[in-house]
């Protein structure tokens, strides 16, 4: 009888462990902080001139908070843009990771996106996030944006897009 009870307990513990392992693959999370970016191209004041055409946000325009899963995890952060409501294909939006964040992050690492990566309308991987401890959180991973292709050749209008970030297991 004692043996059977122990067996049930072992089964339960095994189930819990399986549940934790299962959870470890899906439990990463992310929040997107910082600010929306309102670009202000300087007004043209001289006939014949065009806009400079390339504008960059502050280094810490967007701040990502990344949390790893319960167990060890290898994840990546990807991004794409969505017209909101009007965008032009001649406008190119790029993104750069300017730091590795803050917080207690023993034996974890961020790698990639140390140069500008051009965003598309479909997800593209920006950087990898590897954790070696339980429930690791990295705060304030700073992201910088760049828009190029701004020109008087584009129709006069208000342009906007939404940059969507996703964290996923590798």
């Amino acid at each position, binding site marked *: 009888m004692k043996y059977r009870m122990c067996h049930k307990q072992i089964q*339960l513990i095994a189930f819990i462990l399986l549940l934790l392992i299962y959870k470890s693959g899906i439990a990463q999370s992310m929040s997107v902080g910082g600010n929306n970016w309102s670009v202000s*191209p300087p007004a043209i004041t001289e006939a014949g001139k065009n*806009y400079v055409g390339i504008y960059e946000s502050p280094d810490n325009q967007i701040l990502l908070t990344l949390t790893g899963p319960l167990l060890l995890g290898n994840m990546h952060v990807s991004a794409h843009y969505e017209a*909101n409501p009007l965008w032009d294909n001649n406008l190119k939006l790029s993104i750069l990771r300017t730091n590795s964040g803050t917080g207690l992050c023993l034996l974890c690492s961020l790698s990639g996106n140390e140069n500008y990566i051009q965003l598309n309308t479909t997800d593209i991987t920006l950087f990898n996030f590897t954790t070696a401890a339980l429930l690791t959180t990295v705060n304030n991973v700073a992201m910088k944006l760049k*828009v190029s292709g*701004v020109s*008087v050749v584009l129709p006069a209008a208000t342009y906007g897009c*939404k940059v969507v970030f996703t*964290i996923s297991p590798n």
Partner: protein
Amino acid sequence: MKIVFNITLLLSILSISDVTLFAQTTGSKNVSFALPEISFVDIEPSGSLSLSLIAPNEAGNPIVAPAANKSKWLNYTSAIQTGGGTKHITASISSKIPGFDIKLSAAAASGSGGGTLGTSTGQITLSTTAQTIISGIGGAYTGDGTNNGHQLTISIVPIVSSYSLIKAQSNTQVQITYTISAN
């Protein structure tokens, strides 16, 4: 008791699981900017130009027109609304000089510009009524300064049929006004 304890433990873990299952894995920020409609035109280099008629040195000969002046370049920047029409540039003079025509033509655009640059009308005789000299301008910029945009050729020509109106005069100033407008 152990079974109750185990069930409680399992429910607790499932509860944690529910929280993490719905953890946020996406987020977004917006990017926006506005590009206004623009219509700028100017002449480079700034300043006036002189066209000095040459008196005949032989009785019976007419007054001689000077060589055409090609020192001026027309620059413009244009941004149009979505679905908006093109723009054009007109020229007019402040007054006519009796017995003479002032003629102007704009060459095809050259230099460092881009976009939908305009097309020259060709040579026109300027009057106090604005006339189109360049049309079909879309979103475009010519580049700034000399050697950018449309080189202007400006000349003054005696009108043979109005020769009787010609009078000796000095430093008669005529202002040429250029205007860019939507069609």
